[in-house]
């Protein structure tokens, strides 16, 4: 995207002056932006969808994202044909345990909507209660507005959103919810709000805030990964970093995963925990290699051994 293109869009009425300034800043800050032509945008949309497809598991999530993509595409086409369209309300609830791919999918959605020209930037602002809730009267609304502003043109992703309802009526979390609801009215079509959290807590949260539920037409459930999926995720993470598991390391990792899955889902962090194990194993491999006497081979550098995962979790 170029400055001239932004000016053309402003002149053609495709973006507002505020959105044009957002894009200007993005150009100046060298933020990742869509490429120049519609053709490139189309190609990039395909890239984004390919990235979604490459994610391990998440079959239903992928299907739903495809449905959303098709829905948006058809609504836009219907607009071109001057047919009655459904409002493009894309605020979404993500339900699932930690490490089940919620943030990853949110980022993909942002990029997808950017390429489909639903959002001008498609960036993701990830926040939690502490980023929204203040310490004195009026502070919360100010903090929440600040985050909403940052998210304009993209997605505001509130992790563990149910915690906003913590503390009851007198808690400032309610003020944050009110500010969010107001922003959804005032900035319709300018940003997408995703509320994420554990399935049960999110259900309770929506039940206790009936006004909220109707504002979120999309609900996506992120199931826990099974052991095969977690092992595949681990292999993929290692492949990206150019590491390989020895047979012994693979068995040790499989044991760790099975042990993890026997824990409460709340305390086992799914793919996030697997990533932590991988990162720990990479650090331990480095220490092992540094301490090793004799020549260090390419094979040594590539392979993670069982011992690098430690004795257990």
């Amino acid at each position, binding site marked *: 995207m170029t400055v001239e293109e932004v000016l053309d869009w402003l*002149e053609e009425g*495709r973006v*507002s*002056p*505020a959105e*044009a300034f*957002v894009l200007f800043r993005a150009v100046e800050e060298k933020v990742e932006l869509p490429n120049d032509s519609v053709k490139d945008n189309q190609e990039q949309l395909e890239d984004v969808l390919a990235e979604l497809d490459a994610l391990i598991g998440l079959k239903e999530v992928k299907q739903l994202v495809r449905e959303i993509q098709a829905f948006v595409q058809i609504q836009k086409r219907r607009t071109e044909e001057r047919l009655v369209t459904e409002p493009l309300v894309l605020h979404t609830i993500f339900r699932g345990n930690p490490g089940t791919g919620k943030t990853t999918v949110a980022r993909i959605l942002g990029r997808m909507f950017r390429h489909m020209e639903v959002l001008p930037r498609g960036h993701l602002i990830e926040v939690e209660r502490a980023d929204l809730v203040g310490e004195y009267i009026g502070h919360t609304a100010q903090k929440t507005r600040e985050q909403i502003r940052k998210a304009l043109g993209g997605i505001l992703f509130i992790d563990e959103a149910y915690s906003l309802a913590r503390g009851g009526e007198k808690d400032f979390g309610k003020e944050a919810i009110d500010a969010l609801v107001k*922003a959804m009215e005032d900035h319709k079509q*300018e940003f997408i709000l995703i509320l994420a959290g554990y399935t049960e807590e999110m259900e309770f949260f929506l039940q206790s805030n009936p006004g909220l539920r109707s504002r979120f037409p999309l609900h996506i459930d992120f199931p826990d990964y099974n052991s095969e999926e977690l092992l595949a995720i681990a292999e993929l993470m290692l492949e990206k970093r150019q590491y390989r598991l020895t047979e012994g390391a693979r068995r040790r990792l499989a044991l760790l995963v099975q042990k993890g899955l026997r824990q409460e889902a709340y305390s086992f962090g799914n793919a996030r925990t697997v990533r932590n194990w991988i990162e720990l194993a990479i650090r331990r491999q480095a220490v092992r290699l540094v301490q090793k006497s004799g020549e260090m081979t390419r094979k040594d550098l590539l392979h993670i051994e069982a011992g690098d995962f430690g004795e257990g979790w």
Partner: protein
Amino acid sequence: MSLKACMIIGKANVGKTLFAINFADYLQVTRLEIEFTPPGEKTHCRSLSRKEALQELTGTTPHQTLGLQCIQIQMPGLKGKKRFSLMDTSGLTEGIPDETNIRRAMAQTLAEVREAAIILHMIDASSHGKSGAIEAMGQVDWQVAQFGGMRKGYAVLANKMDLPEAAAGLRQIREELPGHLVLPISALHKTGFAEVKQFVWRHL
């Protein structure tokens, strides 16, 4: 060498043109040599007195200015004089306006804003916070401030300080734009102009 531009930017009807005319007067410009550049057209010059300029170029209806209006100014200071172009621009809107001429004029403003040495961002302090939105400041002002904040020569002019509601508006503007220089002025009564002059002088 072209003159450094001091651009006045802001929403429609905040008092940009009145400020440009009165600020030029404050800087001892007796007759205004104004370069008018409507979008996509050639520049033409006109010589106007302050009274004529006020009559012709200002008013209460929004979007009186639909193009760039530049006044060349020689600013006297303690250490000699500095020359610059005071650039009045078309008012920005919150959403996307239906009128093509307004959109073209806004695009022209934005094309110039990246090159301006100084950006004077004008906000109407008297009506600040009346919109009923969650934040008193609209998106366009907020985004201009974010963009301007990336530059050295950026200041907010909180205008219409002569009106009773403006004091509260000024407080709110300062709260909403922490870290930005906010200068309270009255374009009508030429108050706060000394501070604006000082700021412009420093950044030329």
